[in-house]
């Protein structure tokens, strides 16, 4: 009986290495794509969640505002109409404003950063002769450095102010 003790031939070894490397290259590329997609998607969802959390805070307080106390302007050097100040009917004062990439809420002398991903914030009163309607538009943006891209989420809602 003759035993085959030859092991790999060179050709076999080369072929195997080539095939394995092709599989690895393809596989890693797929993983990179998946990873990229997951990161982008996750960031989008984070932004959406953040916007979803912020808008009700602004809107529910704004809805309780007294329209006579309403001031729409901006912090010096910041985009137009990116600040809104009002007194709620219960006497509490609120200010929401943009400070660079931060969205800040100030109430009773304390400030709180609601978001650090601000791209656009505008409190648009459709008509300056009737401030009972304010259209709040908010865009959050986050740079994903490893992908050299940006995720965006825009949310807008109209709010009606019922109180004088």
């Amino acid at each position: 009986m003759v035993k085959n003790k030859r092991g790999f031939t060179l050709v076999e070894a080369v072929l195997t290495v080539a095939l394995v490397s092709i599989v690895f290259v393809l596989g890693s590329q797929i993983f990179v794509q998946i990873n990229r997609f997951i990161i982008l998607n996750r960031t989008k969802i984070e932004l959406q969640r953040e916007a979803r959390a912020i808008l009700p805070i602004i809107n529910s307080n704004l809805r309780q505002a007294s329209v006579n106390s309403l001031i729409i302007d901006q912090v010096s050097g910041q985009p137009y109409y990116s600040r809104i100040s009002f007194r709620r009917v219960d006497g509490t004062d609120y200010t929401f404003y943009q400070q660079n990439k931060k969205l800040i809420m100030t109430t009773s002398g304390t400030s709180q950063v609601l978001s650090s991903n601000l791209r656009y914030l505008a409190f648009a009163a459709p008509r300056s002769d009737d401030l009972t309607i304010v259209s709040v538009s908010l865009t959050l943006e986050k740079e994903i450095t490893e992908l050299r891209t940006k995720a965006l989420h825009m949310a807008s809602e109209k709010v009606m102010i019922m109180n004088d």
Partner: protein
Amino acid sequence: MKTNCRGLTLVETMIAITVIAVAFLGIIGSFQYVTTAIQFSRARTLANTLAQEKMQILRQISYPRLMITPAPSYYYVEGVYVPYDAIYYTPETILEGGITFKRFTFIQMVSESAGNLLYLGATPDTGMKAITVTVVWTQGTTEKKLQITSIYTNPNTIMSNATFSGTVYNAANGLPIGGAEVTVAEYLNWQAITSSSGTYTINLYPGSYSLTATARGFFSQSVMNSVAANQTITQNFYLTPMSSGTLTGTVWFNDHLVISQVCGSTANASGFKQEWVELFNPTTWTWQLSDGINPIIGLKYQSTDDAAPKIIALQYLNLSVAPKSYYLIANTNTITACGITRDADALWDPANDGYPNIIKCFEDDGAEKAGGGVGIYWVSNDNWIDRVGWDWNNGSKTAPIYETNGIDQNIGLETDEQYVRRCSTTGYVSGLGRCYDSDNNNTDFLDFRKPISVPPRNSSDIEPVVSGVPAIGALVSCEDGLSLATATYTRGDGSYSNPYYAEFRLVDVATGTWQVLVSSNIYCREISTVTVSAAGQIVGIPNSQTGPSWPYSGYYSVILSSQFAGGYISGKVVNALGQVISPGIKIESGSGSTYASATSGRYLLATATGSYTVTANPGQLNPQYVSQSIAGVEVYTGQITSNVNFILSRGGNFRGWVTRDGINPLPGIALDCIDANDVSRGQAVSGADGYFLITNITTGTYRIYPVLDSKETSSPSLISANVAYGQTLFIGTFTISGSMGKITGRVTTGGQPISTGVLIVASQSSFTNPPSLSSSTLTGPAYYTSNSYEDGTYILEVRGSTTTPYNVRAYYPVFSGDTPTTMTGSYSNVWVNQGGITPNINFSW
């Protein structure tokens, strides 16, 4: 001991790689599912936000200005028809979060009755409107929907301060009727359901009304009565119970030619042995057997001695067979038998093997060929149309061609023997078409032998069809509004003495004259003038009185033939006094229209299946009456949806014109028409030509006014007018000043739409930067502001003006590092007309 020292072979390596690759694919596959799930919850959240936002926008419209959807359109999603407004609040397409959403709005009047909301469609104001917003998006390949509904109440509703109350009684025994409905013809929302003790209360405004009480199984009763302020009027009703009877009959369908008779050998006077196969056409259409050159339908024969069916080549003398007519295929030109003579419609071709003796008999051809069968078939695809076979059980052989069971025969086919198809379950009746077909030769055929006694028929013979294939499970429904639809069931046991048939018993059919609908799959039959004249009567249909009448005296056989895949809507149309309107009122659904009877007020509308809005008197075709719609009427295949009833009051229309300057029309202004009780009775919006038409107004005096915001003015502010029935009254012109127009455009950077948001500001005064806004700016020059949408478009509403143009500026903040800078753009001399749109005010950076 041997050791394998070779290591991995190439094959092994490749298998390993394949396994790894499969694992990869699996991971990628599961990843897909996770992504889909994430996307779905994301889309749903966005849809919810969009729906809520629309609700906010609509609720900012003042109550009278919120228009009721006049005739809803329907959008099919998730298996339901979602109604929506395509006139005032048209569907929107919105891009948000990279997903395209469709947003539909539907607004209807509602009223509250015993804790439940009644959705009323378009009707005079109830003080409550229901807003339904539906957001639809595509998830993968299917559409998903999210729907929210909110009730908007009229802040200025005046309280109803008059009352009708009373009891609804059964006139026959004086007992109260619970669950009866009491309605006011003039106001659909004023209605009440009686309690278990038969009592009801309706609160309404003072006035004179027509009240109607209806209850299932009773004839409804209408009365006129009036009530003054702070008064309670007792109005009792005594309803006469409907008597009911039962409708019964049999149902058959016919969709193919049948073999109605076979004779293998009978000698004529000169001793020639005649043989024939006779066909009958029980359908309502003509069957073509040959085009004159090539056969279309052919004949095959096989004896118990043959290995396979043989084609009997034919010479076609007549090419077709008419409805209810026979077709005689024979081995000689003229058949004489049973005392009659008939010419053949087709002949055995002399080229056939064994001609003229093709169908074999015991005496002529021997015992082993006496069993057999014939069949007719489509030449194009060789599929059978109908078959009949006869056994030779002495030789333990069954028929070679047959349906379910060959005719039981010991000897087989003999000379002077014929197999004759039954006319109906009863057997052979001279003068009736022979077409009973339960798909079983042994019960469908009768055997006449030595001598034969059923004369052959040919294309000159026409006989009525009283049977066919039993239509088991056919749906039977009646429009009486009392009975419920039923289905036919099997009678008989399938034996020779008791063959199968399909019978129905439709119980609880109210006394009166009705239409009945019978349907099975694609076949249906309407039977009109079905009369149940007394309680407990059992009426066989069709009968001599119905349309169509019975096919033959004494045969209550419904023969299905016309093809129709839809269903029916039925009901009654009366005026506010409960009287039938003459000439008949037109009834319209999405897919058809008909007229109600001018004598009974009843209608039966054939329509495709689906969900419909049914309208009586559409477009006030009969100008003396208002039109009325009932939404959400479901139509099922082969059924009558009954009790879609209308009570129409007499009425007319108001017409007028809205202008911005006395010369140019002003579209989009809402007008409200209120009655003496300040209740809104009709609304309209001025069209592109400035004209408006408030339709469907019950006769009387009304005030019509444009619904304006605080900065708009109208001259005059309202017009009083009195409409007579059948009249379209031009009430005059409203000149409006200060109403809004629109500026629209796109915002782009580097040619791409800006999706992050741009602030757009317009004013008639000149400005560089938008001023701070507060209560102190309310009276200064007006600024109008809006944000661009995610798709890079914007709409800015400003007050229209023909004297002063607008300056429009855009502010686009961008970040350089962590600090924002604002890019700006501007237009001057932008003219905006009231009710107009000034487009293409685009900004690009």
